[in-house]
């Protein structure tokens, strides 16, 4: 029942936000998202005491095909829900003190998005999961479309059609799975139990159908072309939702819905996928070095990071999986911080061009400190959250193949290059006309960046709770994935 509450609370919130009118919308949305966060914290305490057994909820829904309303939270789902519910209030808070036209629609869509994302993470029935997966696309599309930048129409349409293509391939995969699986069910327990009974010739097909959907969402090179444009055209909160949480839908799905369900497909094609991921890491890092636009730079750095996460998942060992989970959380927090910093800069200087900025440190010391912490987190300095994740991921990939890990390790060096260069050009040096009037942080900005900075450091120093929560779930998944 707790899961039901967590799932549907944001939906109710989104309706109430819509009714609350433009002036109150942001505050109402914040209030509800904080309450949701409190509920999540309570759920976490319950989980610590008695494990995941209380969180399952099962109800027959559609009889033909057999689709059930089966939701639940094991450690993996719980962590993703925590990430979602932790970031949503931050994202809402980040929009305070900004002029947003038709605010009630905006915040209502954000909370609706939260609902759909949680749905993806807690759904334990294939088609239910698919429905939430698609549902998550609609609010973000409209957020980007109505509140985005000048070129938003084409960019968002490309984004929508691109991701929908993947989704439909996945739907095709699910239908095939349903017919070839002896149990004829979408329920995740049946899918796990019968995974090895599906003929391996079919599993190759299934692997690529699912992989295409997830690779587009993550995105893994060469399916990334929608991403940078969409991030830079979407409003800040849209980019935060996309990069902070929505990307994780893809990596989460790799763990939950791909490797345990088509094990022999993964055994056959996983090596190709992991090479794609590693190629993507290097490729995206190199492009990131060349970027002049802050948001695009962050977008490509994001591609590099999630490439490493996916590579760790396909390494099919415990270190890789644990690392991917930690890094998903860390990347979610960091990238939201980065996009918020970009928003702060754009809000004051009306420019995101790295070359045109400089010297902000001199006029905005508080902002400088916060920005530094976020940048260090994302270049994976030890004692920040990025380090633990990247270390474990590289370790996992190393166990899988030394050479791959050597190439994947480039991400740390290249990441440091593009992030620190960017930091240097934007913050250091002398002020110029655009940056001399730069005002320091407002209260909500301080609050947001403060929370993010604390999260970065705390997770970097004491990541153990994450491991303990994720471990049982990952063990089940891994044991299923390794059956030949």
């Amino acid at each position, binding site marked *: 029942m707790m899961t039901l509450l967590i799932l549907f609370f944001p939906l109710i919130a989104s309706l109430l936000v819509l009714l609350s009118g433009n002036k109150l919308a942001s505050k109402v949305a914040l209030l509800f998202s904080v309450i949701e966060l409190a509920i999540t914290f309570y759920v976490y305490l319950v989980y610590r005491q008695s494990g995941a057994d209380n969180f399952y909820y099962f109800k027959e829904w*559609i009889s033909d095909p057999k689709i059930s309303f089966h939701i639940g939270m094991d450690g993996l789902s719980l962590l993703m829900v925590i990430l979602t519910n932790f970031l949503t209030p931050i994202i809402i808070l980040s929009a305070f003190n900004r002029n947003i036209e038709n605010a009630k629609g905006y915040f209502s869509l954000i909370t609706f998005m939260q609902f759909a994302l949680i749905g993806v993470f807690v759904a334990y029935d294939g088609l239910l999961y698919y429905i939430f997966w698609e549902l998550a696309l609609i609010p973000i599309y409209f957020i980007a479309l109505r509140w985005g930048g000048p070129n938003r129409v084409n960019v968002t349409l490309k984004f*929508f059609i691109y991701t929908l293509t993947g989704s439909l391939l996945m739907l*095709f995969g699910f239908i095939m799975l349903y017919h070839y699986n002896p149990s004829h069910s979408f329920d995740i327990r049946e899918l796990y139990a019968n995974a090895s009974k599906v003929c391996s010739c079919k599993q190759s097909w299934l692997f690529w159908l699912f992989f295409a959907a997830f690779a587009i969402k993550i995105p893994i090179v060469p399916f990334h072309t929608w991403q940078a444009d969409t991030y830079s055209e979407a409003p800040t909160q849209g980019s935060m939702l996309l990069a902070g949480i929505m990307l994780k839908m893809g990596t989460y799905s790799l763990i939950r819905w791909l490797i345990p369900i088509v094990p022999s497909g993964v055994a056959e094609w996983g090596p190709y996928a992991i090479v794609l991921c590693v190629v993507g890491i290097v490729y995206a890092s190199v492009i990131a070095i060349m970027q002049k636009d802050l948001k695009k730079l962050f977008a490509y750095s994001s591609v590099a990071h999630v490439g490493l996460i996916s590579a760790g998942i396909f390494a099919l060992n415990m270190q890789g999986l644990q690392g991917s989970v930690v890094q998903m959380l860390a990347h979610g927090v960091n990238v939201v911080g980065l996009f918020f910093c970009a928003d702060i800069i754009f809000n004051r200087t009306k420019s995101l061009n790295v070359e045109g900025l400089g010297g902000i440190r001199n006029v905005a010391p508080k902002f400088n400190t916060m920005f530094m912490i976020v940048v260090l987190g994302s270049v994976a300095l030890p004692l920040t959250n990025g380090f633990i994740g990247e270390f474990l991921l590289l370790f996992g990939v190393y166990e899988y193949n030394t050479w791959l890990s050597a190439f994947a390790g480039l991400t740390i060096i290249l990441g440091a290059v593009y992030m620190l260069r960017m930091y240097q050009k934007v913050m250091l040096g002398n002020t110029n006309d655009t940056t001399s009037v730069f005002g320091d942080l407002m209260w909500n900005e301080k609050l947001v960046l403060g929370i993010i900075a604390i999260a970065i450091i705390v997770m970097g120093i004491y990541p153990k709770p994450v491991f303990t929560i994720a471990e049982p779930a990952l063990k089940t998944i891994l044991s299923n994935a390794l059956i030949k």
Partner: protein
Amino acid sequence: MVVEILDLRKILVPMIILGLAIIFYLNLEDWNHLQFFYNNMLRIDHYSVAFSGLAIIISAFVFVLSVDFYKDDSRHISDYLAIMLFILCGAIVMFSYWNMAMLFLGIEILSISLYIMAGSKRFDVRSNEAGFKYFLMGSFASGFLLFGIALIYGATGSFHLANIATYVAGGNISPIFYVGMMMMMIAMLFKVAAVPFHFWSPDVYEGAPALVTALMSTLVKIAAFGAFYRLFYVCFLDTIGYTSLILAIVTASTIILGNLTALSQVNFKRLLAYSGISHAGYLLLGLIGMKGGTANAIFYYSSGYAIATIGAFAVAILVFKAMKNENIEAFNGLGKKNPLLAAALTMSMLSLAGIPPFAGFLGKYYIFSEAINNGQILLTLVAIINSIIGVYYYFKVILAMYTKIPDDTVISSNVSYNIVISICLILSLLIGIYPDVLMHLI
């Protein structure tokens, strides 16, 4: 019986709605009572009751909309409504026929009424053209149908569906039978506007008054499909192997051509005409390798499609009227001018595009699932790729509403439209979330 009551109720809209409600109730009373009427000419089974119920609901929507639509032309409203009732009557016959003669009769009742309705804007050249074109082409199709029926009679010695089915099951089928079957198939494909027999549909849809177009793209299309399916399922099931290649080609080209042509349309009615063609293609996909559950899938898909289309037309009629323009640009800035109407149209478009949680999504799911189950993997892939293309043109409308700059025309709604639009939306969500209410009917 259902049909007689119909003809009495042609005085006023409330009376008609009341009549429809009564018919709907009587129709439901027939549930689970397998009966035959008029010397076994009609057979009332689950299939016919379910489809008739759908047809009655659709017509009820159209009648509610007609009050306002014909406000300026109220002198003739009784004629129009009577003819529309005839269309409904024909449709119901087409769902429940058990004899080839009744099939022909049903199609003719429906078509002749429709020829008149398509041309019912007497002083509009385009409407006249639409009516005339539809009439000419439709008569050809009827000729084919009649010829096919005659040939099948020649082979089997009976008009009776049950007798024909026994003849087919007995093996030893004469070649004349196949020719007759092909002829009937061509006629039916014409009626559902499948490629290459689709040319009439965009012109007629565009020329006819918007309300008639709404009726054509929902009730008439579903009636044609219902009759098509019944014919094949009862009579030709064992011989379908011979036609499946032809049907597969027709299906693929219907989906592809309908979709690709829809991409470049600027007129909203033409857009819906072509999208309707591609939807007919999806329905045909369910028909190709049919098995027991297919009727349910087709029924579900038709319901989802009809509800979304009626909702879209209800919004479109309001907008067309205010803007005096039937192109997609008429929707420019509707999101600012009337957010509720825009939201309603958005949801209809999403349902047509097959996005969950609307009915269109599960409809597509059922059809694809049937097709994969029957081994049509390649065709299903074609259909899936085309659903992606479909998103593009449905989103053109959504984009126009939310990103283009509005002019100052005020678009107001009124009660009857609001009722229809909101019921459509609720139904679309309801059957999208609880498909079980429809899925076990047949």
